[in-house]
């Protein structure tokens, strides 16, 4: 019964996302497409973060750094491609098939280093040291004067894919949707694989898992890197969507936002955070349209979610973990 309900919900959600562009064509507000697109991009980051918080109990308070790094890689390559001088002798390219994997590689390498250092700690120390690394990235981005410093960097145009024209808002939207679906499917496969089961075993009882002959570190590090790559992908898409990157992408408040979205949606459900993103961003949009002091409502909403929303929106439906 729950299984059918679950499948129905997934199909309904997917249908809603697919239906947005035709609805906008049929006379809906064009702003709706932008809103839905932002939801898709943030959802990729939220699903990635859920992978480590929900399944691995690694509460990263610095995931925005990968969002920022992914975005800035795209921005910096674009800056050197259009106008700027060559970057270390490379004149740059606008091909998404080169730039995007490059951005993801940057995120993976940095996540490898950061993860190797931070995963020596756990609990509150882990939360704080991930935050500290994100702050380092933030301050480095702010100090990059040639790339705009505080003000950030404008992108001339979106990256190019063969056969697909990303300049069209609807095409770009469907690409984001396809990537979200693909990434969520990959994460679901990971979670249900032996690797994912080990990760969850480590969350439930590290001691028992160790006694079964598991070394925690490589599993946690691999999960951290995978999650960082997903968040980096969201950053890449955001840079292409907004054609604008700023250090704020890596700000600590952004990390908090991602965390709030995951909890709101339901920890350890993968699909929950997508619903969480939709609710969070829609709420943000509604409240900020209603009053400029919208934070006075949004803040308490987050607090209430933390106090009462133990299983999130989708926890009950998708069988997330209890705390």
């Amino acid at each position, binding site marked *: 019964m729950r299984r059918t309900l679950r499948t129905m919900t997934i199909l309904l959600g997917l249908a809603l996302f697919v239906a947005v562009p035709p609805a906008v064509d049929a006379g809906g507000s064009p702003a709706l497409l932008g809103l839905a697109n932002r939801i898709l991009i943030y959802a990729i980051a939220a699903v990635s973060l859920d992978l480590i918080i929900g399944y691995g109990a690694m509460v990263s308070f610095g995931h925005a750094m990968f969002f920022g790094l992914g975005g800035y890689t795209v921005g910096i390559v674009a800056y050197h491609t259009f106008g700027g001088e060559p970057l270390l002798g490379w004149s740059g390219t606008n091909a998404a098939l080169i730039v995007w994997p490059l951005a993801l590689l940057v995120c993976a390498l940095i996540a490898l280093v950061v993860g190797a*250092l931070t995963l020596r700690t756990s609990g509150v*120390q882990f939360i*704080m040291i991930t935050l*500290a690394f994100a702050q380092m990235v933030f301050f480095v981005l702010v*100090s990059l004067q040639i790339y705009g410093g505080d003000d950030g960097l404008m992108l001339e145009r979106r990256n190019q894919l063969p056969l697909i024209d990303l300049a069209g808002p609807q095409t770009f939207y469907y690409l984001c949707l396809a990537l979200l679906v693909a990434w969520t499917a990959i994460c679901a496969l990971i979670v249900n694989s032996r690797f994912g089961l080990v990760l969850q075993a480590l969350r439930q009882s590290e001691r028992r898992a160790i006694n079964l002959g598991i070394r925690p570190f490589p599993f946690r590090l691999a999960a951290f890197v995978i999650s960082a790559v997903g968040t980096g992908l969201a950053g890449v898409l955001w840079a292409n969507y907004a054609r604008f990157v700023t250090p704020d992408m890596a700000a600590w408040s952004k990390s908090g936002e991602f965390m709030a979205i995951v*909890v709101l949606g339901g920890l350890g459900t993968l699909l929950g955070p997508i619903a969480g993103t939709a609710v969070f961003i829609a709420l943000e949009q509604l409240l900020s349209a209603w009053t400029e002091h919208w934070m*006075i409502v949004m803040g308490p909403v987050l607090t209430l979610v933390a106090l009462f929303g133990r299983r999130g929106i989708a926890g009950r439906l998708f069988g997330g973990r209890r705390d």
Partner: protein
Amino acid sequence: MILLIEQVLNGLQYGAMLFMLASGLTLIFGIMGVINLTHGSLYMVGAYCAASAVLQSGSFLVGIAAALAGAGLYAVVIELAVVQWLYRRDHLYQVLATLGLILFTNEAVSLIFGRRPPLMDIPPFLQGSVTVLPGLDYPLMRLAFIGVGGLVAVGLWLLVNHTRLGMLVRAGADDREMVSALGVDIRRLYTLVFGLGGLLCGLAGVMAAPLLAVEIGMGERVLITTFVVIVIGGVGSIRGALVGALLVGMVDGLGRAYLPQGLQMLLPPSVADTLSAGLVSASIYVLMAIVLLVRPLGLLPARS
């Protein structure tokens, strides 16, 4: 040499402020196990209360009273309304709930006190500077700040080690159930400790208000640094908070003075300037990363 001493004094002053915030935060964490992100907001509330009270009354003493009352009361309200439900919850929820409170407090403060940040002058009896060494005049206000920091450190040591309340606090940190079973109202003790943390934030706020810009967001910046301090020092330990605060203060003060000079010798000036600005801001995080790599629990953890 003069520059070095001046930077050491600057580092001490910054360290004193960080200690006032970090000691409360580390007590709250050590005893209740709560990550309290609103600690920075309490500091901001203290600074705003002080600045507007001084503006209305013209008296620095009234400012101090207003800051202590404002931050202390707000802390107690927060504890009763939200934080007391978080004691046994996962850190994730504590972070999220108090993050929501930060957003709320920022907006509420800007609604109550207005968008334009209030200015606060240095009180007349603390204006001017003192000749510390021949050739080195140092502002009296900053010296007073260092002095207050020292007093707080001594006061907290006395309070924790030589009073009944301190004994309960130490016992509560060790074993909550046992203290409760011995007939101590642990709930009230927690509220009290949280209020004490609020008072210290208020004190830091009123001392910092004449020196720094009083503005929305001042709390978050210092909050993250405060977390760096307690993580370096060892979470839950007041001695650790003191060591961490001084270390971070010094690294920041000396880094600001010597890092640009050092880089200018190695790199062309235009690159050196932008890079050093970033590196100075990042230096304390580098310090924290190094400390955690060598000692994952911090320099002086409360329990080993």
